[in-house]
């Protein structure tokens, strides 16, 4: 088990190192002058622009040798310094991102956990049940094939605009200031529901068909046939099949984080939900490279943490990893 975690941690650290390096490399080796492009969109007085230009040239550290730029980058990173936002000048990037992160967690965590639970339960239930298999599964395929943002747009339009039940922009009503009261909490939940629902539905489709296919494989395995031959009740056979089928699904969850993050980013854009996705869109439209790079790093850190959480869960649910049998392949 020590070896298992050691290996995983090594990979994660290497990944982080590479990601930071990429983050440093890209602005320096892409065509064009990043400072120029970045400031071309800002409309301030000429002397203010000059100050900003000087600041960003120094901030990119373009005036020192390249190896020193790289070391400085790491140094700044460990001091929590990700630069200053252009679009929200003069706020530091780290502060801007920190304001957005809670919204992401609030949106993603329930969506991931609930869809994983519900999708797997449902998929296991639907497998080899003819009418469910024929009606709900095609729906599952369409759901996983649906682009996240489009489902978001559809929900916003149908439930938000046409039916007028849910608000479609922001994290809480624009007329309110954040405070602790039932009215405010109600408003937060109303604003949260649609982005949550679109993330939930797409993932639900994926998990349920994945589980349905896994269960069918497991029900064809020798141990299932043996149990059946012994006259075990259907429910018991299914339970064994489920416990075996859930393992690849957990691995699948780790593999899917990248896609889920991408989905969350665009869903936030659709609903103007003030998480990192919304920030990224603003950063792209304003050519705010520091903000984009900061968001990139935060996404990487988030995904690495989530992967590590999955590794721990895997050890808990799969006893083989504990005695070091499946450590390398998992």
């Amino acid at each position, binding site marked *: 088990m020590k070896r298992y975690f050691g290996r995983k941690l090594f*990979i*994660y650290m*290497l*990944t982080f190192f*590479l*990601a930071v390096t*990429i*983050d440093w490399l*890209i*602005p320096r080796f*892409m*065509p*064009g002058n990043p400072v120029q*492009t970045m400031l071309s969109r800002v409309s301030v007085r000429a002397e203010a622009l000059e100050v900003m230009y000087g600041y960003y040239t120094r901030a990119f550290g373009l005036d020192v040798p390249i190896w020193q730029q790289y070391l400085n980058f790491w140094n700044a990173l460990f001091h929590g310094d990700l630069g200053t936002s252009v679009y929200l000048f003069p706020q530091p990037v780290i502060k801007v991102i920190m304001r957005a992160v809670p919204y992401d967690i609030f949106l993603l965590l329930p969506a991931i956990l609930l869809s994983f639970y519900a999708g797997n339960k449902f998929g296991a239930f639907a497998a080899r049940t003819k009418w469910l*298999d024929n009606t709900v599964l*095609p729906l599952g*395929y*369409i759901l*996983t*094939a*649906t*682009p996240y*943002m*489009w*489902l978001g*747009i*559809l929900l916003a*339009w149908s439930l*938000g*605009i*046409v039916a007028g039940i849910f608000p479609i922009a922001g994290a809480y009503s624009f007329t309110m200031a954040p405070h602790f009261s039932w009215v405010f909490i109600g408003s937060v939940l109303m604003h949260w529901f649609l982005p949550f629902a679109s993330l939930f539905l797409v993932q639900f489709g994926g998990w349920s068909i994945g589980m349905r*296919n896994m269960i069918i*494989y497991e029900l*064809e395995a020798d141990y299932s046939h043996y149990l059946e031959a012994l006259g075990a009740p259907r429910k018991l056979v299914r339970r064994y099949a489920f416990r075996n089928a859930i393992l690849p699904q957990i691995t699948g969850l780790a*593999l899917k*984080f*990248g*896609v889920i*993050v*991408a*989905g969350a*980013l*665009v869903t936030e*854009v*659709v609903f103007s939900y003030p998480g990192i996705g919304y920030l*990224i*869109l603003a*950063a*792209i439209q304003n*050519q705010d*490279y520091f903000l*984009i790079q900061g*968001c*990139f790093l935060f*996404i*990487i850190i988030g*995904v*690495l943490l989530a*992967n590590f959480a999955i590794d721990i869960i895997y050890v808990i649910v799969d006893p083989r990893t504990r005695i070091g049998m499946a450590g390398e*392949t998992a």
Partner: protein
Amino acid sequence: MTKPKKINEFLYFALRSNKIRVGLTVLLFFLVLTFVGPMLTDYLPDDYIGPANHPPSSEYWFGTTTFGQDVFTQFVYGLYPVFLVGILGGGLASIIGMLIGFIAGYRGGMVDEFLNMMINIVLVIPTFALLLIIAAYLTVRGFLVEAIFIGFTAWPWTARAIRAQTFSLRSRDFVDLARISGMNNLKIIRTEIAPNMMSYLVMVFILQFGGAILIAATLDFIGLGPTTGISLGLMMNNAVLWGALQLDMWWWFIPPGVAIAAIVGALYITNVGLDEVFNPKLREM
């Protein structure tokens, strides 16, 4: 003598499968529309042709945008990049994944250690975020560049799966025999190992194809797609940015989403159908 018979048998089961029939029909429909569509319209996607905010009518089949552009024209022109980026991006990702998977699985040892570590690293990096920052710094982007980026970031799961399968095949007798008879490694992979997972390779390509379409649509939607030309993702981006939701202009954002969901869904369903044909255990009686 045996080969044609095998293909006939495959075709027999493939065409009997409803999933494959439905999937291929939908795909064929959109493929034909991609090439015939531009002939059905007199305009170009960016032309300002008439009244703004016009709902669908006999003249403007899918209505018009806030700027008076014809949605149907944008839609049919937007289909082409979907297939282009899907096939190129998905194809590239499959090829890279296969190469790395075959080499890692077949060679084993240090080569495998290194390649496997690389797979694991790229697997963890949220590639969409990576695409974001690369695309953000590139001021000129085309569909080809988009496809190449997607291809170079989407391969890891394929490499991992193929590596595992190659691993289980490489110690089989027929592979040993080929090795003893002095066949070179490349030829062994090509003639002994790959044909044994042909069905899997086909399915990998289909999944990568669908995946690439979704990634491309997402990139386009966030405004980091190609800088010129129209695509379905860009249509949705425009619709949301210019208030199609608030103005209740459903005809602007529904068609592009339906097309993407239908194409990708058809690919996935075809894939399951093929899985059942290749693997008789999964067939429902």
